[in-house]
């Protein structure tokens, strides 16, 4: 059983569409991070959210931490082909535990 469940596992959309991916757990985390991983590379940190209810924006990406610090969402507005990749959430407790990721494909 994974500590963090990400959904959907796979998402294929057209350029210009909006999307939301989710990261859920029954556990409380000190913080939650989102990483993006491209083929043949390691994950790269996008954002860290710390406070319950916190919302952070990174250009077209909006990250939200749930009020109870158990879940998070990533919303992308007007997706572009360059957004294609594997999006991983990681929850901080004694160490960083990762979800299995959402593989996003944005078609031109």
């Amino acid at each position, binding site marked *: 059983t*994974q500590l963090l469940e990400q959904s959907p596992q796979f998402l294929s959309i057209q350029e210009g569409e909006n999307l939301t991916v989710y990261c859920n757990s029954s556990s409380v985390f000190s913080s939650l991070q989102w990483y993006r991983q491209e083929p043949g590379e390691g994950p790269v940190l996008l954002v860290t959210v710390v406070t319950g209810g916190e919302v952070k924006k990174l250009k077209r990406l909006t990250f939200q931490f749930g009020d109870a610090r158990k879940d998070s969402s990533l919303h992308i507005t007007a997706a572009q082909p360059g957004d294609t990749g594997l999006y991983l959430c990681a929850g*901080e407790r004694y*160490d*960083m535990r*990762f979800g299995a*990721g959402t*593989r996003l494909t944005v078609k031109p």
Partner: protein
Amino acid sequence: DTAVSQTPKYLVTQMGNDKSIKCEQNLGHDTMYWYKQDSKKFLKIMFSYNNKELIINETVPNRFSPKSPDKAHLNLHINSLELGDSAVYFCASSRLPTPWAGRGANVLTFGAGSRLTVL
């Protein structure tokens, strides 16, 4: 200069062999990790070292033995390789171990991964 570098990038070997993967970081971080990413892309922590001391040792077979000669290097040696060991192994580093860095302050920097294929 690559911040976290792993070698080799690809490794193909036969069942039963012994192999090593090397990792070096030039970020001046105190903490290094090994993560395993399986075919379903699930990234699972294996080991964590802080300043050459083992601080996290997940339920990993004894065939896996990490070694940290200094705080900039963390190598992974695998004995008697099995088919199920096939995966991408990622090395990562951070300034401090997660519980010590302060809430939300820990950032992992990953290497590009080493893809191990056991035939």
